[in-house]
């Protein structure tokens, strides 16, 4: 995939300014500015505890920041409005969210669970297209074969794909995906990110959290690297996937290779050269760098 275009004329659809969040007395986010644009896949990366999920919750409207604000393009002209001032139903027509952990309290079938993604459009003209949209979302996530099965008996990866299909079925201009690939095998990892990429190509705004830096490098227009509640790098994969930067942020030596025959970047941990004892840090020691090894 190409690096971020210099052409930044795509409209901003989701933006947060100077976001500070405190949870239990600890400052999790320490002044984050982030703008997401339509047509772009933005990948949010960073070590455990960097604040990725907190920032994600703020952008999704789940968490009100202590200071700062989040605005979303609320009408056809792309005028930005404060997320907290928009009714849940209208917000649900603007952005779809896939959470990391998708559980169902009752034994709905996979199909019924994907159909729930159509709920925001009940009573509109869009309702007519429900069946076609649900089927196409399930085809894209390869969950058609699971349609009649009850979600609680599915495996973790299958449940994640059903949740992804539900987010697709919502057909919103903004897609927020929190680790959609965490439980997936290599084929479905690629397919999920590629599908999100397709949506972006059609004009959607996509924000994805992943831990696999090589996956991020392959599909992102833009990578935002978070560390300790701050954005430490924001740019094209070529700019952000820098061995020195990543080694320092993740506190583990990594190297960045070019995949043979492409300009894709592969982030590989340098095993055996790890620091003898993990440096004291907020991050759990045995974390992300190893996962970067695709």
């Amino acid at each position, binding site marked *: 995939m190409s690096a971020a275009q210099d052409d930044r004329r795509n409209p901003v659809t989701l933006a947060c300014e100077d976001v500070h969040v405190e949870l239990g007395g600890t400052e999790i986010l320490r002044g984050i500015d982030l703008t997401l644009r339509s047509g772009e896949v933005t990948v949010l990366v960073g070590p455990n505890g960097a604040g990725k999920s907190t920032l994600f919750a703020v952008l999704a409207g789940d968490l009100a920041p202590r200071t700062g604000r989040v605005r979303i393009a609320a009408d056809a002209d792309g005028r930005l409005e404060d997320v907290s001032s928009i009714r849940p139903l209208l917000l649900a027509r603007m952005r779809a969210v896939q959470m990391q952990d998708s559980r169902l309290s009752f034994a709905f079938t996979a199909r*019924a669970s994907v159909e729930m993604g159509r709920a925001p459009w009940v009573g509109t003209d869009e309702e007519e297209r429900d069946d076609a949209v649900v*089927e196409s979302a399930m085809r894209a996530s390869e969950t058609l074969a699971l349609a009649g099965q009850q979600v609680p008996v599915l495996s973790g990866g299958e449940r994640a794909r059903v949740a992804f299909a539900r987010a697709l079925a919502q057909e919103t201009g903004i897609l927020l995906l929190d680790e959609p690939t965490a439980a997936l095998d290599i084929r479905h990892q690629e397919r999920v990110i590629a599908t999100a990429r397709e949506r972006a190509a059609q004009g959607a705004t996509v924000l994805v959290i992943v831990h696999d830096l090589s996956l991020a490098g392959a599909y992102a227009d833009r990578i935002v690297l978070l560390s300790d509640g701050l954005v430490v790098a924001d740019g094209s994969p070529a700019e952000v996937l820098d061995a020195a930067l990543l080694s320092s942020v993740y506190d583990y030596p990594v190297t960045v290779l070019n995949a043979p025959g492409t300009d894709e970047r592969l982030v590989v941990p340098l095993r055996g050269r790890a620091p003898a004892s993990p440096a004291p840090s907020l991050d759990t020691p045995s974390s992300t760098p190893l996962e970067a090894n695709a």
Partner: protein
Amino acid sequence: MTAPLRLAPSPAHPSSATPARAPESVGPADASAPSMRDHRARRAPWLFTLAAVLLALGVLWAGASGQFPISPAQVLDAIWRGATGTATSGDQTRLADATLWNVRFPRVVMALLVGSALAVGGALMQGVFGNPLAEPGIVGVSSGAAAAACIVIVLGLTVLGSWTLVAGAFVGGLAATAVVYSTARQGGRTEVVTLVLTGIAVNAVAGAIIALMTFLGTNATREQIVFWQLGSLNGSRWVHVAVAAPIVVVCLALTALVARPMDLLSLGEKPARHLGVDVERLRIGVIVMVAILTSAAVAFTGIIAFVGLVVPHVIRMITGPGHRILLPASALCGAVLLLYADTIARTAVAYADLPIGLLTSLIGGPFFFYLIRRTRRGAGGWS
């Protein structure tokens, strides 16, 4: 594709409130769609038909059973005469009509109303707690309502006339629901252990209040209090029906509004909000409905536990968890269950009216036990 599609792609307003359309699928026509549907939902018409037939038979049976024997044909005649206002002829017929219209029919209607209220209250509570084991009787809402009702009786409150008791029960039920809800829930879900422990605590406090009221009360009020704790439909009158019926019918009608959001709530609170559900409003509305339905039932019949647990659970096994079927089916099947249970309770032992709460607990207790074991074995353990 079956739906008429507008094939022209929508103008590029990806951020606006118009959907960003995926390219329409290029696969074969949607021939497999029916088989992809939840096959359990197809059983719903059969379930409703069966329940309706059982309901009609149950009314005849309940009318015909009792110390004064009346044939089912006479029951039908009496219903006809009552509905059309035709005068009766003959002392025997008049006596039968009087028995039916003054004693048995109000009790039948009350059983139907209370059964619906308890079953729907249970289904709603399970939905809002995200836990199939939540039930007003188990978590203490019923005993909270009963405790408040006892206070009303012993203190002889009549501020709101015949509604005072219901209003008192409602306040108690609502308070108990609020306590359980704020204690037992975390992140939109409730763990079974927490739920049951909270139920123990609430039941203990409510039991203490009931005990205190028993201690303070006169002989007459004590008798009433005992009746509350056991649960019985004995002594149902049309005046009671006149108070209970509007409450239950309005609540049942309102459940139609919450059915779809309740489905979404089973994803958890945040995902439901992401799909446009105003979760705060929904859960407050549902909790108030649970409290109203439970208190209406408790105020007139005392604590009848487990109906709200067994009925929704069995319906979920038959027609699946979708609330648009679950809620009306619970109303109907709860009514049928309580009608039969009550008829058994008053005819099983000659010249004695068994407390129906005893009967439902006798069946419901072991069923609860089975559910706990099953849930524990299931994926996710105690959740």
